[in-house]
C-alpha cells in the first residue's frame, strides 16, 4: 500500500514538472513576449524597457530554470498588471473557485446518486429511460448558455437569485447548478451501471436469502459496492469542474482563479497565466490521488497484504 502511494507520488511530481514546462512553453509561443506586453503602439525603446524589466532579455533556458526553481518552492512570480505576487493573487481567488467546485459536486451527487439508484431498481422501465434521456440532455447542454438562461429566468424574471457576485451564498447556487450539469450525466450512468451489476451479484442473492429488508439490501449491501467507482470518479469530476470553471466564473462574474486567468490572458500577464495552469493542474493531480486513496479505503480488497 505504501509502495503504491510512493509510486503515485513520484508520477504525480513528474506530471507536475511536465506541466510546469508546458505552461512555460505555452506562454513563450508567441515568440517575443515583450512586444505583446508593450502593446501595438510601443516604440523600440519601450519594448527594450519591457524586456529588461521582466527579465525577458535573458536566455530562454535561464528563464525556464528560474521559473522551475521558484515555482517549486511556491514563488510563482509577480503579476505585471496587478504588481503583486502571483501566489497571493491566486491564494485570494482560490477559495471562490473551490467553493464553486464543491457546490457543483455536492449538487451533482445529490442528484446523480438517487437517480442512478432508482434507475437501476426500475431497470428498463419508463423511469429508467427517462433518466437516460435526462443524462443525454445534460451532456449536450452548453454550460455558458445554461448559465445565461438560468440568469434570465431565476435572476431577472423571478428575482430569486442574484445574477452575479459572491456577496451571499445564494450567488453560488446558479453557477453550482450549471457546473453540476456537466457532471450529472457521467455520475448517474456510473451509479446506475454499478447498482445493476451489484444487484445481480451473488452476495446480493445471499443477502436476500438471509431475509434482510429491501432497504438494507439496496443501500447497505449493493450501494456500498457500487459506490466505490462513483466516489473515485466524483473526485476526478471535481478536478474537471475546477479546471473548466473559467467559463462559469466569467458568466456569473465570480472572482475566482478562472476569472483571474481570463483577465490575465486579456492583459498578456503571462506570469499569472503560467501559474494558474500549474495550480489547477496540481489540484487535479491531488484529486486523482485522493480518488485512488478513496478507492483503497472503500474497497477492502485493495488494502494490505
Amino acid at each position, binding site marked *: 500500500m505504501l509502495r503504491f502511494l510512493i509510486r503515485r507520488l513520484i508520477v504525480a511530481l513528474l506530471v507536475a514538472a511536465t506541466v510546469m514546462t508546458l505552461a512555460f512553453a505555452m506562454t513563450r509561443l508567441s515568440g517575443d513576449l515583450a512586444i505583446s506586453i508593450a502593446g501595438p503602439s510601443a516604440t523600440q525603446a519601450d519594448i527594450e524597457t519591457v524586456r529588461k524589466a521582466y527579465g525577458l532579455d535573458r536566455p530562454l533556458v535561464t528563464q525556464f530554470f528560474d521559473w522551475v526553481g521558484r515555482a517549486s518552492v511556491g514563488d510563482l512570480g509577480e503579476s505585471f498588471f496587478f504588481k503583486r505576487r502571483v501566489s497571493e493573487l491566486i491564494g485570494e481567488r482560490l477559495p471562490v473557485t473551490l467553493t464553486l467546485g464543491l457546490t457543483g459536486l455536492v449538487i451533482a451527487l445529490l442528484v446523480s446518486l438517487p437517480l442512478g439508484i432508482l434507475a437501476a431498481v426500475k431497470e428498463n422501465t419508463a423511469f429508467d429511460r427517462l433518466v437516460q434521456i435526462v443524462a443525454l440532455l445534460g451532456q449536450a447542454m452548453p454550460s455558458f448558455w445554461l448559465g445565461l438562461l438560468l440568469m434570465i429566468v431565476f435572476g431577472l424574471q423571478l428575482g430569486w437569485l442574484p445574477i452575479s457576485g459572491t456577496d451571499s451564498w445564494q450567488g453560488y447556487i446558479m453557477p453550482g447548478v450549471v457546473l453540476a450539469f456537466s457532471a450529472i450525466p457521467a455520475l448517474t450512468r456510473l451509479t446506475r451501471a454499478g447498482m445493476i451489476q451489484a444487484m445481480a451479484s451473488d452476495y446480493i442473492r445471499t443477502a436476500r436469502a438471509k431475509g434482510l429488508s429491501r432497504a438494507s439490501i439496496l443501500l447497505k449491501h449493493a450501494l456500498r459496492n457500487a459506490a466505490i467507482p462513483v466516489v473515485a470518479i466524483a473526485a476526478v469530476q471535481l478536478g474537471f469542474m475546477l479546471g473548466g470553471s473559467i467559463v462559469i466564473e466569467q458568466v456569473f462574474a465570480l472572482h475566482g482563479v478562472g476569472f483571474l486567468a481570463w483577465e490575465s490572458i486579456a492583459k498578456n500577464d503571462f506570469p499569472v497565466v503560467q501559474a494558474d495552469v500549474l495550480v489547477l493542474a496540481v489540484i487535479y493531480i491531488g484529486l486523482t490521488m485522493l480518488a485512488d486513496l478513496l478507492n483503497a479505503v472503500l474497497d477492502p480488497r485493495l488494502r494490505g*497484504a
Partner: protein
Amino acid sequence: MSALLEVEKLEVTFGKTAAVRGASLTVAPGETHCLVGESGCGKSVTALSVMNLLVRSAQRRAQRLAFQGEDLLKLSDRGMARLRGNAMAMIFQEPMTSLNPAYTVGSQMTEVLRRHKGASQRAATDRAADLLARVGITAPGMRLGQFPHQLSGGLRQRVMIAMALMCDPQLLIADEPTTALDVTVQAQILRLLAGLQRDLGLGLLLITHDLGIVARVATRVSVMYAGEVVESAPTAELFANPKHPYTQGLLRCVPVPGKIQRDQPLGAIPGTVPRVGPAFEGCAFRERCDFADETCKHAIPTHHAGATHDFLCRLPA
C-alpha cells in the same frame, strides 16, 4: 409428524422455457433429502423457488408449496423475508462470490440475528463466534474481524454454513455446496453438514449432481430429469431397487469398486437432455430410454405412488 417442506407439482418458467415442469417432493423434519440430477435439470431452480429467490422474470406456480404447514404461495415478499435466514436458510454453490466483499465476516453474520431476533450486537457476536467454532474454524474471534477475500474457499463455505445457522433454522437448503471446492475440502464440508444435521435435527435439502454424496449422507433421494422429479425413495431402496429407467441408467454409470470388472465399459446414457418447450408432449426421457416405445411420445407418464417409493413412468416397474 407433519412435513417440514411440501412441494407439489411445482412449475417454473422463464419466458418460453420451462425449467421446472411439475416437481414434487417432501422433506420431513430431521431428514437429509438429496435432490439429484444432471446440469440443467432444474434442481437449483426448484431450490430457489422454495425460497422465492428467483429473478423477477420467472413465473412460479404450484399446486402446493408449504413450509411447516404454512402456504408459501400466499406469502407476500415481506412474509417470505421473515422466514428466510430465520426458519429456513440457504447456502449456495460459489462461496468465493457469495459474501459481500465490503463488510467483515462478523458484521455479515450478526446482521441476520439482529434482523430476525432483535439481538444486541454483543449477543449476536457471541453467537457468531460460537457457530464459527462449531463449523470447525479456529480462532473465531479473529475471523469475525476479517474480510471475505482474506479467507479460502473452504473457509468461506464454512462461514456461509455458520451464517445460515445463526437463527436456528428448521430447514437448510444447500445448493451444490461442495461443487466449487477442492476434492479434499469437499469431504470435510460434507462431513460437517452431516454432523450438524444430526446434532441440530435440521431438515436438510441437499442439491447435488454427485451420486457419491447421495450415497454418503442422504436419508431420502429425489431424482430430477428435465424439470420433473422422476423418482423418489429412501436412499438404500433407490440404490437397491431403482424403478425409473433414468435412475437405472445413472446407477450403471457409477463405477463401484468390487462390482465392476476391468475392461468392462462404463455405463453411459446416450443422448442429451432435451429442450422442453411449451409444446412438449409425452415423456422427456423417451429418446434415451431402453424401454420406451411409440406411446411414450404422447402419453403423459403416470405417477406411481408407493408407500415410500414414487416414480414417474408410463410403464410399470
